[in-house]
């Protein structure tokens, strides 16, 4: 065997997304003074929380060779539901329960369509995307839902033991997803559904139930994220998170999760979310219009996958 150069081997072991993240920080740090300040870094973290909460379940969904493009619309609908419940004088707990229930219902619908009806995930979730978006517009007449009281807003601005509450949410969501994916049977079956579903079925596992569970988890996280989204705007808005699934899919892909064979890892998604967050924040600081930001996010995916592809060459 040819002796491997240790430096080269070590460099190749680092995932492409880590290089990209460092590179982005260097570029934006040089281009804009405020970028590397403590306040801005915290800001990037805060802005990335909601995206992370969609990207985490999206990782599981993509690992199972699926896709859920309805997550942004479902999150929006959940946020509108939460706001409307509060406007009608319900307590926060009841309102949150209603929002999470809406998320779970859409997750269940997606899961049933993909796993039982066996629709292609893109088509199934395209349908539920339309329904969720339409419902959000219908129940609000296309208007923002304001006057939701003062109990929600502190969830975004407040702190818990010195940690901003949104970051605590992010930490909790990451820990929960990590535990599910790597420590439970369900997590193993996520890899198996994407990697070799036949083997799972032959092992006597009711794969279709776990398959549904993956999409339900997506709906659940969208419901929870709705709390943060509503708190941030202190209102419900029927187009608030439209298109956020795009950023979530980008973060998962940039993080090194493949769309085939159940290949991927959760930590990569966290780095991917940060890469998207850094990109958006840095471009904002430089005054780049949001339409061009979308172009850059698109470039980010392509560059990330090229880097990973190049690294795999001998």
């Amino acid at each position, binding site marked *: 065997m040819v002796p491997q150069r240790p430096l080269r081997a070590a460099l190749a072991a680092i995932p492409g997304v880590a290089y990209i993240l460092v590179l982005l920080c260097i570029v934006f740090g040089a281009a804009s003074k405020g970028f590397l300040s403590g306040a801005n870094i915290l800001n990037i973290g805060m802005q990335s929380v909601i995206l992370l909460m969609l990207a985490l379940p999206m990782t599981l969904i993509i690992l199972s060779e699926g896709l859920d493009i309805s997550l942004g619309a479902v999150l929006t609908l959940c946020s509108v539901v939460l706001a409307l419940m509060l406007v009608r004088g319900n307590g926060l707990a009841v309102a949150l329960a209603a929002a999470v229930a809406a998320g779970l219902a859409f997750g269940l619908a997606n899961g049933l369509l993909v796993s039982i009806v066996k629709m292609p995930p893109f088509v199934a979730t395209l349908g539920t995307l339309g329904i969720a978006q339409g419902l959000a517009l219908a129940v609000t007449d296309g208007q923002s839902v304001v006057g939701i009281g003062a109990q929600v807003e502190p969830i975004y601005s407040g702190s818990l033991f010195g940690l901003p509450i949104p970051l605590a949410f992010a930490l909790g969501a990451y820990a929960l997803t990590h*535990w599910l994916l790597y420590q*439970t*049977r369900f997590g193993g079956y996520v*890899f198996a559904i994407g990697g070799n579903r036949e083997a799972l079925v032959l092992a006597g596992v009711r794969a279709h139930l776990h398959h549904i569970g993956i999409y339900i988890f997506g709906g659940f996280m969208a419901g929870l994220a709705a709390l943060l989204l509503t708190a941030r705007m202190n209102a419900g808005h029927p187009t608030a998170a439209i298109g956020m699934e795009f950023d979530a899919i980008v973060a998962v892909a940039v993080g090194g999760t493949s769309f085939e064979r159940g290949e*991927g890892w959760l930590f990569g998604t966290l780095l991917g979310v940060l890469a998207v967050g850094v990109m958006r924040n840095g471009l904002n600081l430089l005054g780049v219009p949001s339409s061009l930001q979308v172009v850059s996010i698109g470039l980010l995916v392509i560059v990330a996958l090229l880097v990973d592809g190049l690294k795999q060459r001998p």
Partner: protein
Amino acid sequence: MIAATPAATPVLELRGISKEFPGVRALDSVSMEIRPGEVHMLLGENGAGKSSLIKVLYGAYAADTGEILCDGGKVAIRSPADARRLGIAVIFQEFSLVPFLSIAQNIFLGREFAGRIPGQIDHPRMHAEASKLLQSLGVAQDTRTKVHKLSVAQQQLVEIAKALSQNARILVMDEPTASLSDQETERLFAVIRRLKHDGVAIVYISHRLAEVFELGDRITVLRDGRKVASLLPSETTPDELVHLMVGRRVDTTYAREFGSRPGELALEAKGLGSDRGISGVNLEVRTGEIVGLAGLVGAGRTEVARAIFGADKVTAGQVWIFGELLTGGPDVRTRRGVALIPENRKEEGLALIRSVQDNLLLASLARLFPRGWFRPAVARRASAERVDELRISTPSLLRLVRYLSGGNQQKTVIGKWLNARCRLFIFDEPTRGIDVGAKAEIFNLIGELVKKGAAVLMISSELSEIVHVCDRAYVMREGHVAGHLKRGELTQANILRLAMHRE
């Protein structure tokens, strides 16, 4: 080495197992005893019934008649789960592993050790148990390694460990050494001997005669779905085994005149290799002759056809077509007159939901309509000619191809290439899925093609077809040409002798 000590009761006994499919008797009253601690070799050429027998053992097929006894008691195997309960495990050539899970998680997939919290896996215990299993096989490997990082040989050992973790007492192995190196094969044999010592019964399918004598305790030979012999390695020879395997019924009434003089060189492959595992393939086909490409399933015949056709990436050697060195994909080949009639014509040869006419024109649009617009009269004429010439039985040119019989579908594929003025035809299993009566007609058509000056390379798994139809044949084994047989030497036994590994 531990000698086989056959116990009094067989662990598994098959009595008069038959299985019929429309038009095919896959298994015909097969009886077989499998004893604990023995390696039972199962031999037979392509289509002899080995796969069907495994499927019956595994519960994928239910036998039509006959009974199965386990430990002397009658049992029913209706599903893979039934087979597992009885301790029967099959290790297929395609493994049932999850690439991005660890070795331990693969071994215990669906039977994970529960942790304290519901749903949680007790990872430490699982890795400990998995390590113990691997050690019992004489393998030292970190069970946290993900399976996609393992070699084929290592993955196979994981499969074996998985079977043993389910208390398998009967291990069926389908050509386990097909893609192993010599060293890996030796290691596998050591594992098998260890299992034998522990009383596991092993049913071993192999096409390598040397293995049969090195490893086997008993041999069962199948032919045409029947058991033709059950014998001990010490009582037989490789030559006898080959003779037992050949001699299948000839189920066509086709007869051809041989001995016409071959014409110009249509195809010449020199040292051809591709990224699909063939290497150093040399062969020639001239106009006016039908050349067979024989070999066992998996020997690389289809891969040779695909490399010649430019459908797979050629990594070595050259392909000369009618005296011209060609590179590039199928588009270049078809323009130079090469036609591939693939094995799975419904996926690769036809557009099933289109009409006979559409399919007949599929490869010749540029030739028939050089100006780029469709001319109905030309289309009708070109397709009607082919329907008459090939005697395609269809009520109309507009009939959808999916409603035609297998034989007429195959003729439509041939017609498609005739319209494209092809002159070198590569047939991959031309009679697969075609009923007996239509087979002779397909061979007659192939005969007419060469009479009119075409060249034919024909892949077939049916030894009798090669012998009855071809002027001469190349025999493949494990990705290379193992030998060439001229008309006078072309017998089933000679083909099988070359096709099987004997060193």
